[in-house]
């Protein structure tokens, strides 16, 4: 058994760390306080090759696989979960479906430019009436000749206001539902009938823009059908499976950082004539943070390794999302507690991390839905099918 990461991943980590310290760090506060999305830093991240980390070289990527992608997300989220969310929505769920199920023509047309960061992508599934019940979408796609016409609205779409292309799921045959009736399309933002609606004002992730997207009779040529007609739901679920691992990786970055802040403050803060690090209640918090963080690290990198080695990983991916978001939330919560009043001050980056972490328990499938996914995988192994 060998738990060490090959050296290229350490080098990648170092580079991302340098990038964050030099480029990202100066704008993190402004991103949070002003709901500001730093497009210049997004371009610099593209120039450093962040957008292509998991994709093969022939599509302009780095060929670093899921493990490399986890390294990237972990390091970005150590500094700022908004920024990691922008990159994650673009790479992990925006470009990823084109990579896993797109035709060679679609890959040539879009994936290479997405991997180089020349185009930004969004992934649009959720609607006003379809959140956890993703199969309950209303958006329709009606075929006329060699085109489809898309009608409907998507909600809560990360990168909505900044995306150049949108990967979107619509009903091609509502009577068939998710099994045969839903299809995935690639839509360009300039196309007639597409518009970006209101942006959300969220509790956290202020630097990552989220909005409504409106499709009002948008004509999509048939070449822009992603995968097979009728099988879009499967593409979307496979994409989310992969995305869930990186929510775990981002949670790992957040949890590690919360522990670092806590260790530093526990040594620095003096009360009752000694550093608060001497209180056993503080020890217990630190020990729990460190233990959970290490358990998360093992889970995330083992799952990424399973992906890179072509093993089934749906159950483990659900665990990464579930455990990763909860560990980062719990660690941020303890970090706030250890910092006392400073913990809730907007001058303390952990205050922002606490708000950011909470959201990861909700998006990409709520943690309740993750438990359902994990349990149904477990029961399926026992021959019991619980999914409709």
């Amino acid at each position, binding site marked *: 058994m060998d738990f060490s990461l090959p050296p290229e991943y350490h080098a*990648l980590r170092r580079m991302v760390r340098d990038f964050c310290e030099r480029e990202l760090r100066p704008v993190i506060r402004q991103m949070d306080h002003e709901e500001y999305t730093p497009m210049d830093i997004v371009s610099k991240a593209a120039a450093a090759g962040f957008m292509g980390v998991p994709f093969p070289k022939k599509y302009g990527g780095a060929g670093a696989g899921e493990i490399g992608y986890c390294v990237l997300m972990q390091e970005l989220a150590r500094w700022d979960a908004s920024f990691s969310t922008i990159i994650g929505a673009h790479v992990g769920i925006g470009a990823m479906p084109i990579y896993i199920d797109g035709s060679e023509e679609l890959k040539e047309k879009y994936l290479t430019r997405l991997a180089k960061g020349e185009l930004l992508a969004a992934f649009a599934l959720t609607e006003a009436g379809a959140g956890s019940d993703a199969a309950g979408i209303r958006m329709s796609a009606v075929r006329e000749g060699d085109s489809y016409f898309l009608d409907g609205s998507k909600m809560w779409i990360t990168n909505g206001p900044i995306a150049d292309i949108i990967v979107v799921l619509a009903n091609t045959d509502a009577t068939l539902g998710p099994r045969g009736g839903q299809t995935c399309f690639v839509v360009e933002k300039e196309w007639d009938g597409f518009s970006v609606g209101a942006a959300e004002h969220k509790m956290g992730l202020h630097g990552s823009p989220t909005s409504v997207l409106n499709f009002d009779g948008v004509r999509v040529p048939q070449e822009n059908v992603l995968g097979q007609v009728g099988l879009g739901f499967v593409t979307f679920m496979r994409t989310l499976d992969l995305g869930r691992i990186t929510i775990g990786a981002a949670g790992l970055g957040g949890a590690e950082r919360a522990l670092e802040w806590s260790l530093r403050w526990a040594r620095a803060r003096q009360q009752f004539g000694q550093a608060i690090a001497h209180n056993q209640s503080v020890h217990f918090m630190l020990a729990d943070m460190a233990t959970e963080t290490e358990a998360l690290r093992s889970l995330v990198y083992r799952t990424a390794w399973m992906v890179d080695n072509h093993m089934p990983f749906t159950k483990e991916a659900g665990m990464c999302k579930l455990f990763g978001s909860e560990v980062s939330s719990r660690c941020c919560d303890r970090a706030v507690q250890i910092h006392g009043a400073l913990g809730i001050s907007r001058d303390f980056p952990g205050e922002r991390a606490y708000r950011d972490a909470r959201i990861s328990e909700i998006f990409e499938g709520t943690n309740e839905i993750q438990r359902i996914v994990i349990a149904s995988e477990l029961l399926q192994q026992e021959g019991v099918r619980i999914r409709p």
Partner: protein
Amino acid sequence: MRIIVLINQILDPSGMTVNRRAQQVFVNRREYILNPADLSAVEAALQVRDAAGGDVTIVGLGPERVVESIRQALSMGADQGLAIIDESGAAADPAVRARLLAAAVRKAGPFDLVLTGDRVLDSDGGQIGPRVAELLDLPQLISVETVACQENRAEAIRSTETGYQRVEAPLPVLATLPPDANRPRFGTAQRIVNVYRDQSAVKCLSPADLDPTGEASSPQTRSGGRGYPTPREPGTRLEGTVEEITGRLVTALGLGA
């Protein structure tokens, strides 16, 4: 334009704590980084190449791990890497180090420009650039902020306490750069992966390949021990209006009438 950059590797100072009382440096995290001034030299070399064409060769000297730092420079866009692997520690002596590096530069073939950092962050000696230039009989431009090459000349800007100085010299030339001369570019994810997966990206030699007789490797420097400067008494703070402070200062300096 053929450019050679000489690099060194140091312990990451952010992983160390200094205990003044025990007169000791504690290493909490043993990680090595490319010496910051050498990183400036790599960036300057890439800029010259991007403007004038040609290629950049990175030469590193040190234990096996120096290959890591050469890879970092390659992932930024340098073209070739050459490592001289010295596990003996003999190259910690600046005289030995400079001789081996000069031999490596000669071995690397014809060149127009040799760049390196103006100091190593750990020993702060500042000797390598001038020594190598002397051994290779090259004009030297020391501690310059920028280097540009035009036709057969190198032009450089050096900042001084009173302003900027423009210095130039005919090629081939050796120039050294301070750590904050530029903003070194990031390596790209793709190049990082390529450089690590290509086992032949860095060519390795041993000191014996450059110095068969071992003559260059015999040490010249002897360490007489190390210590801290004696702590100074805190100064006196003069308070008051400008006139009052000036008056007190004149008195304190014994200049008063």
